[in-house]
């Protein structure tokens, strides 16, 4: 039952990703060239709603679907935020997609993105293998 809920949320998120055009390589290029407010508007609104949601969760003491307290501590800072962040930025500009949109692109018929997705999974796997040797 709970999984059906997650599935529905995923469907909703997928539709939003496609219809807002954030999965478009062209929109990402526009963003990195500062030639349109499109992506900044979407992310700005998302952060505003996120902040409001965090406020409400704290204020009303809202519980998760498992009836547990929702973890609202941010991820701890590591050097990986910088090094990994820059590498991710390279990939983001090249593919025009981050992990969520990769799945949405696949679903909306851009089957070629199975290659990008497999390569991304491969990248995540390699990170797991070499992580002890990387600065964090």
């Amino acid at each position: 039952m709970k999984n059906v809920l997650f599935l529905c949320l995923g469907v909703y998120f997928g539709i939003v990703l496609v219809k807002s055009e954030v999965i478009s390589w062209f929109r990402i290029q526009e963003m990195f060239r500062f030639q349109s407010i499109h992506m900044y508007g979407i992310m700005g609104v998302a952060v505003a709603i996120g902040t409001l949601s965090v406020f409400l969760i704290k204020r009303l003491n809202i519980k998760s679907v498992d009836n547990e307290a929702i973890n609202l501590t941010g991820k701890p800072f590591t050097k990986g935020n910088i090094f990994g962040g820059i590498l991710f930025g390279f990939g983001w500009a090249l593919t025009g997609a981050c992990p969520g949109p990769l799945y949405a692109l696949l679903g909306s018929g851009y089957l070629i993105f199975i290659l990008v997705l497999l390569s991304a999974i491969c990248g995540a796997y390699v990170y797991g293998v070499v992580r002890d040797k990387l600065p964090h």
Partner: protein
Amino acid sequence: MRHLCAALVAGKVEYFNYDWKKESWSLFLTAGVIIGGLIAGTLMANPHDIAISGATKADLIKLGVTSFSSYVPKDLFAWDKLMTLRGFFFMIVGGFLTGFGTRYANGCTSGHAIMGMSLLNPGSLIATVSFFIGGLVMTWLIFPLIF
């Protein structure tokens, strides 16, 4: 909820030595995103080209992009481009860096830029700035070399 990306990719890699079944919710979410993409791409399909800014289009034409009719340029993302150096770079190297970088940075656009900033988490702000540094360097400095 927006820790999506992090969970999405990690969930696939079971060697990560944790009980991935506990994280199975993320696989349902992932499946949902694919179905959502399918619904949006068929039932709700947009018959027009994406209305990108004229300046971006002009810049991309200068770089050699000729196809503007779908969500992604067919000059770069197509099966017959896989064996070209450019296609390999954009699809395979790009995908690898996306996956590797997401894990190394412990999150992506949704996890850090949206959720992290909603929490006013300093590490997430630094990560978001780093995403942009990477993206800007790639777009402005490396694109002219690889196109």
